[in-house]
C-alpha cells in the first residue's frame, strides 16, 4: 500500500506540469488585459503599454512562462498583478472559509444523508422510502441560491437568529465562527444530502440482493446489523466515490454559496481573478485545485481498500 501511495504521489508531478502548461497557455490566449484594470477606464494606448512593460506582460509568452516556472521551482507562486500581494498569501487567507464550508457541509451531509439512504433502502417501495426520495428530488431541483435566500429570509431577516453574511475565523471564537457558517452549510448541504442519500439507497438495495446478505439473514443476524454492518460496508465504494467528488468540488467550486453569504473563499477568488485577468492568482489557484483533486482521488482509492478488503493495490 505504501509503495502504491508513493507511486501515485510521484505520478502527480507530470499531471501538475501538464496543468501548469495548459493553464498558462489558455490564459495568455484569452482576450483581456490586466494592465487595463490597473490603469483605469480612460487610459490611452500609450499608458497601457507603459504599464504592460512594468508588469513584464510585453515579454514573449515563453519568457513569461520560464520566469513563472523559475518562481515555482523556488516555491514562489508570484504576486498578484493588481494588488501586489503574494499569491500564496492570498490563497492561504481564502482557504479557511472554503475549508470550513466544505468540512461543515460534508459533516452535515453525512449525518443526514447516510441514515436517510439506509432507511429508504430498508423501507424500499414503502411510504417512507417515497417520502425520502421526494425530498431528494426536491434537493436536486431547487437551486442552492434559492435555498440560501429562503434561509436568510427565515433565520436572519425574519427570526433574527443568525447573521446574513460574513465569515469569522475560528480564532475569533467558536460562536462568531459557527453562526456565520450555519446557513451556508445548510444551503449547500441540501443538494449533497439529496445526492448521497440516493446513492446510498441504490447501493444498499443492490447489495441487499447478494447471497451473503441472504446467508446472514438465514443465520438469524438482526436486520440492523445486516443493514449497517454487512450491507452499508459493502455498499461503501460508490458512496465514498461520490463523497470524494463532493469534497473536491466543495473546496474549489462553491462560488454561488460564497457569493450569497459573502464568504471570502477560494471559489470567489477564482472568479475575481478571472474577471481581472490576474494571471498569477489564476495559475496558483488552478495548480492548487489540481493538487486537491489528485490527493482526494488518492484518499478515495485508499479508502476503497479499507472498506473492501478484496481491493488490493
Amino acid at each position: 500500500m505504501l509503495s502504491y501511495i508513493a507511486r501515485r504521489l510521484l505520478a502527480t508531478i507530470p499531471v501538475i506540469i501538464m496543468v501548469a502548461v495548459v493553464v498558462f497557455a489558455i490564459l495568455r490566449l484569452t482576450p483581456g488585459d490586466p494592465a487595463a484594470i490597473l490603469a483605469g477606464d480612460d487610459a490611452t494606448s500609450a499608458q497601457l503599454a507603459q504599464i504592460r512593460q512594468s508588469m513584464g506582460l510585453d515579454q514573449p509568452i515563453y519568457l513569461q512562462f520560464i520566469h513563472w516556472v523559475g518562481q515555482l521551482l523556488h516555491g514562489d507562486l508570484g504576486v498578484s498583478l493588481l494588488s501586489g500581494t503574494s499569491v500564496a498569501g492570498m490563497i492561504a487567507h481564502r482557504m479557511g472559509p472554503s475549508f470550513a464550508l466544505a468540512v461543515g457541509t460534508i459533516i452535515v451531509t453525512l449525518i443526514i444523508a447516510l441514515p436517510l439512504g439506509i432507511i429508504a433502502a430498508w423501507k424500499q417501495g414503502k411510504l417512507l422510502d417515497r417520502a425520502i426520495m421526494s425530498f431528494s428530488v426536491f434537493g436536486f431541483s431547487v437551486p442552492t441560491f434559492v435555498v440560501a435566500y429562503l434561509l436568510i429570509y427565515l433565520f436572519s431577516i425574519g427570526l433574527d437568529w443568525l447573521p446574513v453574511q460574513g465569515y469569522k475565523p475560528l480564532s475569533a471564537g467558536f460562536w462568531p465562527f459557527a453562526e456565520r457558517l450555519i446557513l451556508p452549510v445548510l444551503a449547500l448541504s441540501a443538494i449533497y444530502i439529496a445526492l448521497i442519500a440516493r446513492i446510498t439507497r441504490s447501493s444498499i438495495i443492490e447489495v441487499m440482493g447478494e447471497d451473503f446478505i441472504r446467508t446472514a439473514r438465514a443465520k438469524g443476524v438482526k436486520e440492523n446489523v445486516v443493514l449497517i454492518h454487512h450491507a452499508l460496508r459493502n455498499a461503501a465504494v460508490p458512496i465514498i466515490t461520490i463523497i470524494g467528488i463532493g469534497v473536491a468540488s466543495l473546496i474549489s467550486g462553491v462560488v454561488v454559496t460564497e457569493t450569497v453569504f459573502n464568504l471570502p473563499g477560494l471559489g470567489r477568488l477564482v472568479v475575481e481573478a478571472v474577471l481581472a485577468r490576474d494571471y498569477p492568482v489564476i495559475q496558483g489557484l488552478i495548480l492548487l485545485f489540481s493538487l486537491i483533486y489528485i490527493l482526494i482521488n488518492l484518499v478515495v482509492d485508499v479508502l476503497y481498500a479499507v472498506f473492501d478488503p478484496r481491493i488490493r493495490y
Partner: protein
Amino acid sequence: MLFKFKRLCAGPILAFSAACASALLLASAPAGAQTVTAVMQSGLRVTDPILTTAYITRNHGYMIYDTLFGMDSHFKIHPQMVGKWSVSDDKKTYTFTLRDGLKWHDGAPVTSADCIASIKRWAQKDTTGQVLMTIVADMKAVDDKTFQVILKKPTSLLLEGLAKVSSRPAFMMPKRIADTPASQPIKEFIGSGPFKFVASEYKPGLRVVYEKNKDYVPRSEPASWTAGGKVVHVDKVEWVTMPDQITAANALLNGEIDYIEQVPFDLLPMLKGRDNVKVEVLDKLGNWTYYRFNHLQAPFDNKLVRQAAMYAIGQEDVLKAMVGNPEYYKTCAAVFGCGTPFASSYGKDEVIQSNIKKAKELLKKAHYDGAPVVIMHPTDIALASVQPVVIASALRKAGFNVKLKTMDWQTLVSLRDSQKPVSEGGWSIFCSYSILAASGDPFNNTTIASNGKKAWAGWPDVPEIESLRRKFAFATDMAERKAITARIQKLAIDEGVIGPLGQFVVPAAYSTKLSGVLSSPVTVFWNMKKAK
C-alpha cells in the same frame, strides 16, 4: 433494531442540533460602537490613486491622503492643505504656504519638497496635469512650508488641477513615496489625510480598514465636497466587499453593516420606506452614459453614417431600460454634463429623441452599403450591459446591419484597443459611463480628446477641438471658457465624437444610526457620526 440504529445515527444528529441550539441561545457579539462598516461599489485591489483612475482607489485616496486645494458644491476652489496662497501680478508665479500642524501618518511634518514631488508624479499620469506641466516653468521650495509654482503663461489649470475632485485628484504623499516612478505602484501608504490605512488588516478585494488620524488638523470651514473641514467623528471605517447586492441589502436591514455606496435600482423597493434605513442620492451630480464610434473603420469612418446613428438612438429609450425610475435619470445632450458650469443643450434634437425617419434619410445620403456594425456588449457590469441592446435595436430599425458581440468587461477593454476593421475582429461601437465630476471640462473629459490615433478608443480626429482644448487651458475668463466649450459641444455632436445617452444618479443607503453623511460626487466618511 431501531434502537441500535438510533445509537449509530441519531447521536451525531443530536450532538449537532444541540451545538446549534446552544449556540443560538448565546447573544451575538456587538459590533464596535464607533466603527462604520460600508459596502463599497467594488473591492479595493489597486491602492495607488495616481496609477489608476478606478473610483474605489480614488475614494481610498480621499481617506488617507489630503489635497492642496478642494472644491465645494458650487464648483468653487478652496485651499485645503494650503493655508495662505498668493499669485503675482503677472499671474505667473503662485506661492503656496502649507497650514500649520500638517503631519504624515508616520509623524513627520509635511514639507514643500513632499508636495512638489507629489505634484510631479501626479502630473505624469493625470490628463490635466500633463497639459499643466507643459506650462509650468519651475517648481521650487522657498522654505519647509512654502513653495512656488512658476508658469510660462497664466492659466487656471494649476488651481483646477490641484483641486481636481475625481480621478485623478492631486493627492499629496511623502517625497520618498512620491519619487516612485509613475508607471509603478507605490508600496507604502502614508498620507496626511483624516484616516490612516491599517495595512495589517487589508485584504485585497475583500476588506480595508481605516482608523481615525488623531493628529489630523481639520480646517474650520464647514465641509462641502472635498473642501472645508474634514472632521472625523468615528474611530474606524471598514470597507467590505459584497459581490451579491441582495446580501448587502439584507445585511443593512439586519444591522450588520451601516452603509451601501450604490444600491442597484431594482433593489430600491427592498430598502425604501424601512424604519432603520435611509435611501439618499449623495452624488447629486451623478453620472453620464455615452457611446463611442470607431472613427477609423467603416461604416463609422463616414460622418453622415455617424449622424444617422445618432438620430436613430434615443436617450429616453436607453435610460428607461437602464434605470427605469425617472426619479433617477434625465435626458441631457451636454457632453460636459447638465448641471455643470459648461453645460450646453446643442444637439438635443439629434440625441434625445429617436428619429428613425431622419436616420434612414441620412443613411441613404451616405450610400450605406450594409457594412456590419459590431457593438461590444459587456454582460458582467449592470450599468454597461443594457445600452448596447437598446442601441442595437434602434440601429436595426434605421437599417443598420448590427451584430451584438457578447463579452465580459475585461474583454471589451482589451478589444477596444484594436484599431483593426470589423472583418479582422475590430469593433464599431461600445458604451460606457463616467461620473460627471470627472467629465465637466475639456481636460477632465477624456472622451472629448480628438487627436486621432493618440485619442481614447474611437480615435476621432478633429483638429479644431484640439485647438479649442489648448485655448481653454489659457482662458481665465469664464465667459471665454463657456464660449470655447460651447463650440466644442457643437463639434463633438456634429462630428460624432461622442454620443451622450443621458444622465443618472445612483442612490446610497445607510443606517439611520448614521448622521452627517455628506453629499459629494466622491464618497467621503468625514463628518459622519454613528449613534450608539
